[in-house]
């Protein structure tokens, strides 16, 4: 291959890659715009009549009450596993007394909201996408529109609001149950001093640690419900489309929860530092 041919091929490959990247970026920007429009309209409709109180409570029951068992089960084992692993690590440093407080810090700030978000996004978010997707392909959403009912207000707004309201409660349940798991392991299996265990937690954990976790859980609730309802609401192409919407909704929600967690943690840290400076 001559130099000119190689250069021509390189140029073509480079142009192709650039075009591909540009197209993907364009699709991404369009999708973000679509989701933002969908979310802003749905949130606006939460505050306009008719109030959908019955639907709201029904979705709160579905997202919240029906997730308690799975959240509790995950929480107790997370707390136990984390306590055990930290004990093994800290024992080498002769700091096993710190296990309780570090578990509490990790659970309240990070693991509680993130794991609750991931579990509920998979369970309730998937169900939301599948339900709305099925309603779309069987023309039930069109039927609502033709009946003079705004489908966004009837189907989407209550689901988003229910998720935002219920996620902090579920996160609280996760925090509480996982601390029970940690306590069980530390006190009953590893025979640590109970007074020291609670005293360290009391010294190390501030109310803001718990509240930032609850706030993040509400944020995750907002994001997964918007993503999953958006996917379900815009489903195309029959049963296969419903499957694809559900899959994409859940996967995107989970990835977004992890990404948002990073930014939210940093922003909360900046906010808390700023507050401290102001209060000084």
């Amino acid at each position, binding site marked *: 291959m001559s130099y000119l041919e190689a250069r021509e091929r390189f140029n073509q490959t480079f142009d192709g890659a650039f075009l591909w990247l540009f197209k993907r970026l364009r699709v991404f920007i369009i999708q973000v715009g679509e989701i933002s429009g969908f979310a802003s309209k749905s949130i606006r409709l939460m505050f306009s009549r008719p109030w959908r109180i019955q639907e709201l409570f029904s979705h709160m029951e579905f997202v919240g009450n029906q997730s308690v068992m799975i959240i509790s089960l995950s929480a107790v084992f997370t707390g136990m596993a984390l306590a055990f692993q930290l004990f093994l690590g800290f024992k080498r440093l002769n700091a096993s007394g710190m296990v309780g407080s570090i578990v509490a810090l990790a659970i309240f700030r990070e693991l509680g909201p993130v794991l609750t978000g991931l579990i509920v996004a998979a369970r309730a978010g998937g169900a939301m996408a599948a339900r709305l997707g099925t309603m779309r392909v069987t023309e039930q959403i069109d*039927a609502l529109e033709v009946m003079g009912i705004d489908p966004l207000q009837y189907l989407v707004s209550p689901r988003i609001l229910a998720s935002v309201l219920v996620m902090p409660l579920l996160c609280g349940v996760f925090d509480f149950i996982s601390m029970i798991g940690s306590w069980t392991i530390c006190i009953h299996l590893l025979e640590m001093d109970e007074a020291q265990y609670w005293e360290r937690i009391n010294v190390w954990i501030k109310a803001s640690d718990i509240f930032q976790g609850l706030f993040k859980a509400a944020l995750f609730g907002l994001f997964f419900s918007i993503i999953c309802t958006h996917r379900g609401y815009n489903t195309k192409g029959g049963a296969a489309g419903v499957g694809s919407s559900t899959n994409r909704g859940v996967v995107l929600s989970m990835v977004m929860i992890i990404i948002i967690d990073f930014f939210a943690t940093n922003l909360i840290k900046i906010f808390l530092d700023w507050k401290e400076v102001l209060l000084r």
Partner: protein
Amino acid sequence: MNEIAINVSELRKTFDGKDFVLNGLNLSIPKGKITVIIGFSGTGKSVLLKHILGLLKPTSGSIKVLNEEITTMTMEHLTKFRQRYGMLFQYAALFDDLTALENVLFPLREHRREISLPQMVEIAKRRLLDAGLDEKHFGKIPSEMSGGMRKRVGLARALALDPEILIYDEPTTGLDPVLTEMVDNLIASTHNLKKGTTSIVVSHDLYAAFRIADNVAMLDAGKLLLFGTPEDFLHSDIELVKRFVTKGVHRKVESQAHEKLEMSRE
């Protein structure tokens, strides 16, 4: 002279900016009559229907429904305006977690809040009986119903708010000949029961169109090819209409022969 319920003028619609699904369509649908819209697949029937319902915005043109321009209506106004429509979907589109009675109650609960629940239930039951559904099926959910029962519930739901315009989207597609005839009779009897209601039926079934229609509109390539009575269609010189009529009659004869054969086998 007939009053006009829906007036479509110079309606054009393109989804990709190049091909026009509706290409300067003009159509006037008279009030209080059954108008059947027919045409080959892809001629723009469903797109026209969505425009009449305000589910799609046209690229250009005007649609006046009951003397109100719907292309320029705000979303809030349009949502309210849609209470004047009733629609029977192709597969009924019933809410699958609600029973037959609850499905019919649904629009009443949303839009007739001034009346009490027992009164609503009374109206819903009457609509279901009008649509020919036996009382013993009122508590069934859609997955427990046959295709015919679902159509009846769908029709009862469409009638719940006493609409001025009733729209049937391909009501007989995919049904066997017996059920097709049942649905046709249902459309005709509903129209007789609700005098003054304008009925629009979008269909492929020419034979059914001739049985129930006061007027037939045939679309081709996004334009109105012919509008007239069923007799006008039978005697039309337009080649495409002739082809459609011949095919329709052939298919009906074939289907009747097939039906007879099945019966003799049984």
